[in-house]
């Protein structure tokens, strides 16, 4: 008898968007890290990268940093779940005549949109710094950006659903985020890396996001865009299901 299931999803999505745009410190604060990485690594390693015959490092690095900023924002959005639990708002949604799955989808969509916006801002910054993407591929790029965002927002929700304290969440996220980022091919080409790094990158979902993004923007990728998209789609389903399952067990 629920007339419209999409409207509650929209409402939950809208709440997160409003909160995001209201928090200027959050927008600006989370741009610091990608800018430091871009400038320090991009210009620092640029000449070495070129000497090794790999071309323009900014061109290589930028998609990796965009992917990184999306992933970090997305995973960290899980903290809002813990926050809402502590400050009670989660209860308000849990007693509403809306299924847990709907709540989880609404929140994930909201978190993923915020992460994609954050990624888009970083994308614009990379262009200022010297990144020259293939402008016709921007649509593909946006698709991959949103894919990375959904995967890792669902991942963050899954972690947050099974935790209660914020400090713990922060530590776990750091523990997971850093290796995923460094071993994803965001910073260096994987085809010349040692076997164990390639092995980890092979099972790291972020690798496919980075690869897809780089492929879309610059035409250079390890796998084809189709393979990257397929893996991201598969992992999205996996993490959404995992997140939904863990979220359904949350007690308030």
């Amino acid at each position: 008898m629920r007339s419209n299931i999409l409207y509650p999803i929209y409402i939950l999505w809208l709440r997160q968007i409003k909160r995001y745009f209201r928090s200027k410190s959050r927008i600006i604060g989370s741009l610091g890290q990608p800018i430091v990485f871009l400038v320090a690594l991009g210009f620092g390693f640029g000449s070495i990268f070129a000497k090794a015959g790999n071309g323009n490092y900014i061109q290589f690095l930028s998609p990796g940093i965009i992917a990184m900023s999306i992933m970090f924002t997305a995973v960290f959005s899980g903290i809002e779940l813990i926050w809402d639990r502590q400050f009670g708002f989660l209860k308000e949604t849990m007693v509403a005549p809306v299924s847990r799955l709907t709540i989880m989808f609404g929140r994930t969509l909201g978190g993923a949109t915020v992460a994609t916006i954050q990624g888009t801002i970083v994308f614009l910054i990379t262009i200022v710094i010297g990144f020259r993407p293939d402008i016709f591929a921007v649509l593909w790029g946006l698709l991959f950006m949103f894919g990375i965002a959904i995967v890792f927002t669902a991942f963050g929700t899954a972690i947050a659903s099974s935790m209660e304290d914020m400090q713990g969440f922060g530590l776990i996220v750091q523990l997971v985020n850093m290796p995923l980022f460094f071993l994803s091919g965001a910073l260096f080409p994987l085809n010349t890396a040692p076997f164990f790094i390639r092995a980890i990158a092979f099972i790291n979902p972020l690798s496919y996001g980075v690869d897809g993004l780089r492929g879309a923007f610059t035409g250079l990728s390890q796998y084809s865009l189709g393979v990257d998209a397929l893996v991201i789609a598969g992992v999205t389903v996996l993490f959404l299901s995992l997140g939904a399952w863990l979220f359904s067990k949350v007690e308030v």
Partner: protein
Amino acid sequence: MSDSSISVKNLTKTFKGGLIAVNNISFEVPKGSIFAFLGPNGAGKTTTIKMLTTLLHPTSGSLTLNGLDPIKNPHDVRESFGIVFQDPSLDDELTAYENMFFHAGLYGVPRSETPKKIEDLMKFIDLWDRRDSLVKTFSGGMKRRLEIARGLLHTPAILFLDEPTTGLDPQTRNYIWTYIKKLNEERGLTVFFTTHYMEEAERSASQVAIIDHGKIIASDTPANIISSTGTANLEDAFIKLTGKDIREQEAGSIDHLRQMRQAFGGRRK
């Protein structure tokens, strides 16, 4: 069929580890009544409210709200009651109006009616002038009023209030009770509330149930409870029935959260 708004029969909740939080309780809440559910800390009040409001499944027994079973029809039941939780559940980063608006959206209040309803309710609780202020700028009493208004937005038949006046000054408490009584009289709203302030229950409730150690130990009108215990007021009757020992509540995960929140800046002021 019946005149009961809430009907509870042989309700039991056993938690993992064997703790029997609610032990075979039965009671009826008449339609249009103000029902006080009293008990010391850890007696089973919140567990009962959680079961009534679909947040927790009973281990055994049956309950109906407005003739509906919360386990079989959680969504229909959720539409039929409003709740103000013991701890604030507003989004501090949103304005008062936005909190109302989002609630309406989640509850499927028809969009054409939403603005008018929000305006009426916010005028009723005297917060219409502050509709565009962020909730984090509100005092504890203002937040409570807003939560009550929000709980009424989808025109429920029952309003649950879990310790609605804890931590508020006497003026605000008095103000809130005036509202609640007005709602009860004007709209025929059934009110189910818990409190540790016995004089509130004595003054406002038409029916009282006292729960202790998971069992209902008294259920009657305040006057009858007082006379049957031979005491002067409900507070004395309550002490006589439940004893003088101080209860140490076992801290659950939510209590840890509560402590942390207080460490983060105690919003309940």
